[in-house]
């Protein structure tokens, strides 16, 4: 009945006993605490006839037909299993039969690993869907968030704003999405929440303290920008694609974050190459 908590020597993660969602991230060294609600949602894709005011979503176009995505969750807690051990601890979550996540803490690591698995995206309701993971926190971020444009240059983004021209915002969601090639972060005076990705994704911060990343999409209409077919990859078995990936979450002070997320970003981008050979030698012989 209590909240579930896992920790290593750097981070403590607490999960809500009712929903099973991640609800508190604590940096044990700097005593930084972030109240957060992390969950998965889906935007309903626009349909219509591709005239200006009814532009469809598709391979080229992300244009949800509403500003609030729908939550993906089951009744009761989403947690199905907790694994603890000296090297790695895991919390397994099932948000629905097509969205699952494993949150891991490895001994000695400064970050938490969130491995998401999404798909096949249901299609019987004929609704196109764009699936996001979203972190809603208690940070005062003043409409600002930061994305990298090429793994090196970090750009400050501001909600409903463009640096060099006056924006008339007509797409409150899509108009605030930016490329996230390896990381996105939000910060306030004392804390910075950085999420690194294992691939290029789209992301935004549409509310104060909020940070979201798109992880999967499936639509049933062509957006008339040239591809000539819907973004509806059915995969080998015809049901749709299962996508799996990882996000790496860091909670540090803004001063420490810059160096730490660059280190981790490099380590992820140039990860060790692993190869195997059957080995008949005994340890002594081999050494």
């Amino acid at each position, binding site marked *: 009945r209590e909240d579930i908590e896992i920790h290593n020597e750097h981070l403590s993660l607490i999960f809500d006993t009712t929903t099973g969602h991640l609800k508190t991230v604590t940096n044990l060294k700097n005593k930084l605490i972030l109240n957060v609600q992390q969950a998965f949602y889906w935007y309903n894709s626009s349909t219509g006839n591709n005239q200006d005011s009814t532009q469809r979503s598709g*391979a*080229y176009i992300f244009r949800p037909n509403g500003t609030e995505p729908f939550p993906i*969750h*089951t*009744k*009761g*807690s*989403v*947690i*199905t*299993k*907790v*694994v*603890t*051990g*000296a*090297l*790695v601890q*895991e919390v*397994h979550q*099932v948000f*629905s*039969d097509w969205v*699952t996540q*494993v949150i891991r803490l*490895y*001994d*000695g*690591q400064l970050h938490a690993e969130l491995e998401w*698995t999404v798909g096949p995206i*249901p299609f019987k309701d004929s609704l196109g869907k764009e699936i996001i993971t979203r972190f809603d926190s208690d940070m005062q971020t003043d409409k600002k968030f930061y994305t990298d444009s090429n793994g090196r240059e970090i750009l400050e983004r501001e909600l409903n704003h463009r640096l060099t021209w006056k924006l008339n915002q007509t797409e409150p969601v899509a108009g605030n999405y930016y490329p996230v090639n390896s990381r996105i972060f939000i910060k306030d005076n004392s804390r910075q929440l950085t999420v690194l990705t294992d691939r290029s994704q789209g992301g935004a911060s549409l509310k104060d303290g909020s940070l979201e990343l798109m992880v999967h999409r499936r639509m049933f209409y062509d957006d008339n*920008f040239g*591809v*000539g*077919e819907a*973004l509806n*990859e059915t*995969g*080998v*078995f015809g*049901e749709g694609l*299962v996508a*799996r990936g990882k996000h790496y979450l860091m909670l540090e002070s803004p001063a420490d974050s810059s160096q730490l997320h660059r280190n981790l970003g*490099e*380590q992820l981008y*140039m*990860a*060790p*190459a*692993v*190869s*195997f*050979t*059957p*080995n*008949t*030698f005994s*340890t002594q012989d*081999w*050494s």
Partner: protein
Amino acid sequence: SSQRFREAMAVAQHHDAVSGTEKQHVAYDYAMRLHAGAVECQEVVSHALAGKMKKGSVEPPAAQFCAYLNVSICPTTEENDHFSVTVYNPLARQVTGHYLRLPVNGQSYTVTAPNGKPVKTQMLKVTQQTAKVRGPRGNATSELVFPVTVEALGYSTYLISRATRTTRSLFMPQAETNVISMAIPQSPRM
């Protein structure tokens, strides 16, 4: 012949490949070209490592790569009781505390570091959730987790052996894994 990956990457500079706005059959073609290139690169890496690991006149067996480790599939680690893992670090600084997760079928394993010392490991059950993929499925029952340390621009080789009853007790620092299972919540759609 080792230009294939380079050529595949050159072809994939088209914005369609970068942003996924190509027709489905073109997407498959990009994937096929990249895969062929990646397999060829693995051969290059394998030869490079073999060259470095040669002991006198003894050539080590060719290195094998596993592309589905993220869904707990790796024939080499699943089917062999004794195998070695070579980890190459392309960064210009030492990497410590990088964890490997290897799909296996035994109950416990001894892992020996390059310096001959035993490495602490942890075994975790492969669950439907972690192995949820259709198509070629491995048959691993567990994942062997352990940390590796690799020098800058260098490699480390770890020896893994399936533990017998005697070796298990003698020198196998294995962390306990405790599992708390919850009832799987039933969503109306499940």
